[in-house]
């Protein structure tokens, strides 16, 4: 275990600057957008921006929400369906029935966009990392140094796979959780109260359930991305040059060949399905839904059950494919193939 920790630390030391820069950019963006939204929310609550939605309660002691600077819009006010909430186009935003929607849209999409951004950014980084993980040490000759020490090849390679999957996804999870907590802390109390009274789901989300779901989502993402991660590591171990390029081009060519021979896109579809876990699973889920389908008194299940995703044939196939590639990595690594 001590050895494995040392191996993980080595991987971290090599990539920590890149991680730090990505995290710093993300945190900066999060803070800036939060500040902007916070100010907008405060202005909204203070009545500088008209709510423009139907409400029949008295928020605090203010009647400013009735002071509509755009009275003609109120006649056209419509409820936005919950499923559409996550996919507003610019045109739809402009057609918002009320400013409360806009404020809520901002908050929810700051979170949704933020965690999606950090998740995808780290996945792209993981792509570079895994493609380079073995190739780089083969290229600079340090494989000979590492293999001159009493560490098993399996442990070395497992550390790289863990760092490239659990490591990157772990950081994604931590930053995602940080984002949610940060938003919770900075979400104006008055706005929450107002939204609750208006039947918005945002106020009904159980935060611990959300974090639990978010963690399980990352586990699912790990399982489904494992074949591609192991494949990248395999390419990194055997290719003589340009591991990332080769790693991306080969499946593309196979996909084209598959389409030519089989007449469908099944090969590439399977890969992209696994890669797009985020889009598939999160699709139309996140904070901010409202509408007639939501019971104002019930807590909201944001993601539904993950067990159906995790204990699935796709997961089994993913593990088998990943295991096959990892075995290939293990045997090729011992040969320490030359690079050009």
């Amino acid at each position: 275990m001590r050895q494995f920790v040392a191996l993980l630390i080595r991987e971290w030391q090599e990539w920590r600057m890149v991680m730090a820069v990505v995290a710093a950019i993300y945190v900066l963006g999060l803070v800036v957008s939060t500040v902007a939204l916070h100010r907008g929310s405060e202005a909204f609550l203070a009545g500088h921006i008209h709510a423009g939605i139907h409400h029949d309660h008295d928020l605090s002691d203010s009647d400013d929400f009735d002071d509509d600077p755009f009275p003609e819009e109120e006649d056209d006010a419509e409820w936005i369906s919950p499923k559409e909430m996550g996919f507003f186009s610019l045109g739809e935003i402009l057609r918002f029935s009320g400013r409360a929607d806009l404020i809520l849209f901002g908050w929810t999409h700051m979170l949704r966009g933020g965690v999606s951004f950090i998740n995808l950014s780290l996945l792209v980084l993981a792509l570079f990392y895994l493609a380079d993980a073995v190739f780089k040490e083969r290229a600079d000759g340090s494989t000979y140094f590492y293999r001159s020490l009493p560490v098993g090849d399996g442990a070395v390679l497992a550390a790289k796979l863990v760092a490239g999957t659990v490591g990157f996804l772990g950081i994604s999870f931590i930053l995602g959780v940080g984002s949610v907590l940060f938003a919770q802390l900075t979400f104006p109390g008055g706005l929450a109260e107002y939204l609750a009274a208006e039947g918005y789901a945002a106020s009904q989300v159980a935060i611990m359930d959300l974090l639990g779901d978010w963690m399980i989502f990352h586990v699912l993402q790990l399982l489904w991305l494992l074949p591609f991660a192991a494949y990248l590591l395999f390419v990194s171990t055997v290719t003589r040059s340009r591991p990332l390029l080769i790693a991306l081009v080969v499946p593309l060519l196979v996909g084209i060949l598959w389409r030519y021979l089989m007449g469908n896109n099944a090969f590439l579809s399977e890969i992209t399905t696994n890669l797009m876990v985020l889009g598939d699973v999160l699709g139309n889920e996140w904070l901010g839904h409202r509408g007639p389908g939501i019971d104002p008194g019930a807590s909201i299940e944001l993601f539904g059950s993950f067990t159906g995703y995790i204990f699935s044939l796709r997961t089994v196939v993913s593990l088998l494919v990943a295991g096959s590639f990892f075995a290939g990595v293990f045997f090729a690594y011992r040969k320490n193939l030359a690079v050009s």
Partner: protein
Amino acid sequence: METLIHLQDVTKTYGSTVALKGVSLDIPPGRIVGLVGPNGAGKTTLLRALTGSISYAGTISVLGLDPQSQRKALMAQTGVIHDVAVLPPWMRVRQVLTYMAGVHPLFNRRRCEDALSTTSIQMGKKVKQLSKGMKTQLHLALVLATESRLLILDEPTHGLDILFRKRFYTAVLEDYYDEEKSILISTHQVEEVEHILSDVIFIRDGEILLYSSMDDFRETFVQLTASVEQADQVRQLGPLTEHDLFGRKVFLLRDVDRSALEPLGELEAPSVADVFVALMGGEA
């Protein structure tokens, strides 16, 4: 007798190139063995096979362990310097030490730091920022701090100046070697190590040409400096090489009775380099 290194019919090919051709060898413990050969002779391939760094055909046992299937156990008892350029260039010196401490159960960090404190290597420097000599010093300090039973050095001083080369081998002898330990050194600068060797191996084109203790080596080979008039007599004894030196003839002979040579001229022990060149087919 216990065998430190055993090779039986070891062959290694790279594509159509045969780097090792059925090498068989037994090296006892407690020796300092020089592996000498020209570029491309198979020295590095042989050492990499001994350390399990590459695959091969045949049988190898080092310290009683199979380098391929028991590499981890073998490396716990073996220090290896493959080449000066194999330390990870992105790591800082401090990180290399931390890594070693994490993965090597016998690594003595204090000893390594003490060794480095006598050099100009700074802990915060990256390996790629170190000079070639510093990298070698660092690698040697790492290896000597592992208390290994066997030290394998592959051209450790290649590209370094003579002062550093001398210091390197002095450090190896003073800080590492005792009769319980063994050293296998690959080099083509044989004149710099021959005074410390107890055995020598000549390798060419993947084949072992000679394996001898230095005592046997000095018994086997002799250099005779004779007058021109006596040259024909010497030539009848089948010298390996012959060349002129200040109007006299210098011969290198193998397995010749010295009592028969003494009347013909002055006898001397040849250098390993002279014998090496002679056996490689050149002239001394």
